[in-house]
C-alpha cells in the first residue's frame, strides 16, 4: 500500500460513498469513531490514574498497548468488511456488464424478427407468423429480464440516483392502466381506479415510482386466474401518501410470505400457474420505495387474493 492509497483510505466520505452506505453503517466511519473513543478513554484513564496511582506512566503505557491491539483488530475487521463489500460490488458490476453485452445481440434479433414479421422483406405464411409471435414473445421476456437485472445492479452499486420532483400519481396510474389494458382484457380482469379529487402530490422520482406501480399492477393482473378484479386506491394517511392495490388473484401461501420481497424468489403456487416472471419485480419495488423514504407491505390469503400497499412522504 503506497502513501496515496493510505490517504484515499483516510477520506471516509469518499470511501463510504463508494459502497453506497450511510455513515452509521460504514466500517470506515465506525473505525474512526472507535479510534476517537479509545483515544478519549486513554486520556481519561491517564488523568484519573495520575491522581490515584503511584506511576501513572505505567498505566498509560498499558492502556496505550491495549489501544494499539484494539486498533489492529479493528483494522482487520474493517478490511474484511471492505473485501466483502468489494466482492458484492464486483458481482453487481459483472451482472451489469453481461447484461449490457446481452442487449446488443438481443436488439439485433428483435429488430430482425420485427422486420420479417412485418412482411416487408418477403411474404409470410400464417404458420410462420405464429412462430414469429413465439419468437417475439420470448425475446420480449429476455429483454425484460435483462432490464430488471440492470436495474438491480444499479441499485446495488448505488449508481441509481433518484431524480426527485413534485408530481401527482393519478395521471401516472391512469397511463399504466391504459398500457396494461390489453393484458387485462385478455385475462378477463377488470381494473378499477377512482382517484379522489384532492389527490395529494408526492416528492419522488416519477420514473422509479412508475416502475414500482407497473410491477404491482402487472402482478395483480397476471396472477388472477379466470375472471377477476383489481382495485387501486390512493389517499392521504397519517401525513403520507398511501397507495393500495387489491386483487382477487391466487394469493400467496403463508409459508412463502416472508420471502416474497427477496431477489429471484418465486412462490411455488405462482410457478404452478405461471412460468413467466423473473422473481425480481417485488425486490425492485421494495428497494425503490425504501430509497424514496417510504414503506411497502402486503397482506394475502391463498385462493382469495392479495393486497399490496406502499406509502411515500408527501411534498
Amino acid at each position, binding site marked *: 500500500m503506497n502513501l496515496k492509497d493510505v490517504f484515499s483510505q483516510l477520506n471516509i466520505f469518499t470511501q463510504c460513498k463508494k459502497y453506497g452506505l450511510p455513515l452509521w453503517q460504514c466500517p470506515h466511519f465506525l473505525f474512526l469513531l472507535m479510534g476517537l473513543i479509545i483515544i478519549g478513554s486513554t486520556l481519561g484513564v491517564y488523568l484519573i490514574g495520575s491522581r490515584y496511582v503511584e506511576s501513572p506512566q505505567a498505566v498509560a503505557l498499558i492502556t496505550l498497548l491495549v489501544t494499539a491491539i484494539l486498533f489492529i483488530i479493528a483494522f482487520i475487521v474493517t478490511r474484511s468488511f471492505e473485501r466483502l463489500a468489494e466482492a458484492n460490488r464486483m458481482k453487481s458490476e459483472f451482472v451489469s456488464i453481461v447484461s449490457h453485452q446481452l442487449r446488443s445481440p438481443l436488439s*439485433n434479433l428483435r429488430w430482425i424478427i420485427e422486420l420479417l414479421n412485418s412482411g416487408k422483406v418477403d411474404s409470410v405464411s400464417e404458420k410462420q407468423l405464429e412462430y414469429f409471435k413465439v419468437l417475439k414473445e420470448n425475446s420480449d421476456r429476455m429483454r425484460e429480464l435483462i432490464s430488471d437485472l440492470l436495474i438491480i445492479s444499479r441499485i446495488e452499486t448505488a449508481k441509481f440516483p433518484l431524480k426527485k420532483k413534485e408530481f401527482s400519481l393519478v395521471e401516472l396510474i391512469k397511463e399504466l392502466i391504459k398500457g396494461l389494458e390489453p393484458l387485462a382484457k385478455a385475462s378477463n380482469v377488470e381494473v378499477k381506479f377512482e382517484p379522489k379529487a384532492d389527490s395529494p402530490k408526492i416528492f419522488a422520482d416519477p420514473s422509479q415510482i412508475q416502475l414500482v406501480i407497473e410491477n404491482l399492477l402487472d402482478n395483480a393482473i397476471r396472477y388472477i386466474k379466470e375472471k377477476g378484479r383489481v382495485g387501486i386506491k390512493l389517499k392521504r394517511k397519517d401525513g403520507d401518501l398511501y397507495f393500495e392495490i387489491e386483487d382477487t388473484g391466487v394469493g400467496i401461501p403463508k409459508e412463502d410470505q416472508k420471502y416474497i420481497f427477496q431477489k429471484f424468489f418465486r412462490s411455488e403456487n405462482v410457478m404452478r400457474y405461471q412460468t413467466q416472471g423473473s422473481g425480481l419485480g417485488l425486490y425492485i419495488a421494495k428497494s425503490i420505495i425504501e430509497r424514496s423514504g417510504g414503506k411497502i407491505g402486503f397482506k394475502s390469503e391463498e385462493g382469495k387474493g392479495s393486497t399490496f400497499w406502499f406509502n411515500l412522504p408527501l411534498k
Partner: protein
Amino acid sequence: MKKILFIEDESALQKTFGEILSQEGYEMISALDGEIGLRLAKDKKPDLILLDLVLPKIHGFEVLKQLKTDKETKDIPVIVLTNLEGIGDVDKALGLGATTYLVKAQYGLEEIVEKIKKALGE
C-alpha cells in the same frame, strides 16, 4: 430522396436498417466506425445521422462533438442510438447537441422510424 448516415459498427444492424429505411424511401449510407462516419458526414451531407456511441477508432461522443463544432455538419440532426445507458450519458449527448437519445433495447424498428421522421420534420 433523403439521405441518412448510419454510424454503427455492427454489420447485422446496418443490414436491417438498410432494409427498413429503403422500404421507407430513404437512402442509407453506412459507416462502420467513427472515423469513416465523420468523413462521410462531410462528403455526403446527409439529412440526418444515426449514431451509435460505442464505436471503433473514434468514440461516439467525440464524433458527436466534432459534428456539432464543424460548420459544415453542425445543422444536421443527430439521433443517438445506443445501448449505453449510464448515468449522465443521456445528458451528455443532449448537451453536445444530439436531437434525441434512444436506447436500442427499448424501441422497436417502427418506433425508431417514427423518431427519424419526426427529426426530419415529416
